[in-house]
């Protein structure tokens, strides 16, 4: 069972130390690849974190979460296509556009539940995917190359990999902190309560729909931020960012790391992307190996990697 409020786990601190160590290690060994890879991991960690808010805490299994990343990315990409590189303009637009799309589609999706919710979020995801593919002015299927990264106060700070890394880490920590506060707040308690027993929550006076919709919107905004960062990271935007496979990968990250703990989603993003990177070195059919690994983890480590780590940690203590 998912704990209502997770007891204090050492994992967030361990993750933070690991992320802080990356620039030092990369600097010492002069491998910019490491820092670029780690930046990408943290960007997806933000998206996975936002999915965990609704999936892990709200039992809303969204199969279209990548769309919010895509919208955030396109906001930055389309801005760049019009020579708008000011991050103070494009980032808020990315976040708000993704949040707005979440509110509009959520208003419809959240009328359904269970498998129907999964299907309809998937359907909206596909709609957005094909819409992006048909944006011929912005590269259509081929995507859109950006000729530079976002600037803040006229300075292209994100051009320096280490600065970019620190900015993304800052975003991740801020999102984690905000999400942490959210799930322990009045609002978070209602979201968790609806996951536990919707009928009971209605009977004591809550309209679950309103709370779920707001949570969905917040998650969409957070994923929009990760999309804006991703566009800058790749200096490229394409419809593939919103494909259903991407949405599926986000679900896998959350489940792999452990639903409903927030840091589990971050851990899941790290584990998924690092495994992908390593395995794909050996074979392009890396999914054939990864699939069974995932099944084993789901079967033998309920609560995902974070639970597994917590257990081995406390086992060593006691």
């Amino acid at each position, binding site marked *: *069972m*998912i*704990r*209502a*409020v997770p007891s204090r786990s050492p994992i967030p601190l361990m993750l933070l130390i690991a992320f802080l160590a990356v620039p030092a290690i990369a600097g010492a060994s002069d491998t910019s690849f490491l820092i670029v890879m780690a930046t990408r991991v943290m960007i997806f960690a933000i998206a996975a974190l936002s999915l965990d808010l609704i999936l892990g805490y709200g039992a809303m299994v969204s199969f279209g979460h990548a769309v919010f990343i895509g919208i955030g990315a396109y906001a930055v990409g389309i801005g760049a296509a019009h020579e708008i590189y000011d991050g103070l303009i494009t980032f808020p637009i990315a976040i708000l556009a993704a949040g707005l799309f979440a509110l509009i589609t959520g208003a419809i999706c959240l009328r359904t539940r269970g498998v129907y919710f999964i299907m309809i979020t998937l359907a909206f995801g596909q709609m957005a995917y094909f819409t992006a593919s048909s944006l011929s002015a912005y590269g259509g299927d081929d995507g859109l190359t950006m000729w530079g990264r976002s600037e803040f106060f006229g300075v292209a700070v994100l051009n320096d990999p280490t600065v970019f890394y620190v900015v993304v880490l800052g975003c991740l920590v801020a999102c984690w902190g905000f999400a942490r*506060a*959210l799930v*322990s*707040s*009045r*609002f*978070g*308690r*209602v979201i*968790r*309560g609806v996951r*536990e*027993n919707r*009928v*009971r*929550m*209605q*009977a*004591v*006076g*809550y*309209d679950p729909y309103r*709370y779920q919709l*707001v949570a969905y919107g917040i998650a969409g905004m957070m994923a929009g931020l990760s999309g804006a960062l991703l566009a800058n990271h790749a200096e490229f935007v394409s419809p593939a960012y919103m494909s259903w496979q991407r949405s599926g990968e986000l679900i896998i990250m959350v489940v792999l790391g452990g639903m409903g703990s927030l840091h589990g989603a971050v851990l899941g993003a790290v584990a998924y992307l690092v495994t992908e990177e390593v395995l794909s070195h050996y074979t392009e059919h890396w999914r054939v190996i990864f699939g069974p690994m995932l099944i084993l983890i789901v079967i033998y480590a309920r609560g995902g990697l974070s639970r597994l780590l917590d257990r081995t940690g406390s086992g060593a203590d006691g």
Partner: protein
Amino acid sequence: MAEPILALEGVCKAYGALAVSDDLSMAVARGTIHALIGPNGAGKTTLVGQIAGQIAPDAGTVWFDGRDITRVPVHARSHLGLARTFQITSVLPGFTVLENVAVAAQAHAGHSFRFLRPVAGERALNDRAMQALETVGLTARAPMPAGALSHGEKRQLEIAIALATGPKLLLLDEPMAGTGREETERLVATLQALRGSVTILLVEHDMQAVFALADRISVLDYGRVIAEGTPDAIRGNPEVRAAYLGEEDAA
């Protein structure tokens, strides 16, 4: 007579060919404990669902506190002052006992679109919850996960949750079902203590408890009220004995 707190007018509900509420009318007077009895499958739980709003009647009107609430959704009825317990225990198993009750109090104490402040530290909500837990005698269990309570304790928790919403009318669907003798006595005492401060509609099979508590009794059979009156009148009613009490007397 003063306006009743609850009035049902011609309520009908059918599942396929089975009429579970059959042109049913009844009223519950303010401040009373009103028992609703009847054999298994008589339609008691379905009626409670139509009063609390989980089930929509096919026809008829539900009046509560002078308002037509037939089309009012469940959560809004809670804010009007209706609270119910479920025959099949329905709590938040992963929440602590305290949080189960505090979340009910929270719904009736300001809005819940507050995103940053930790709710666990809200004194007013916790105090209110502890008060409700004290009423049912569960204070010692407050920090436990609700899923770990015994069956009888969960029944008490249901009542504490309902009380924390500050109801005018409390709908209790077989609160004593499956509880031990001692717990039943405790529950009877609890409900006695609540008499007057909240109106109670009590669905119950335990006749001893019903006759100890009820000011009035309605007898339901095949979705109709076949008799209504004081406990003494019901005890002496031959139709009721035939439909319902007969089985008990014979046993």
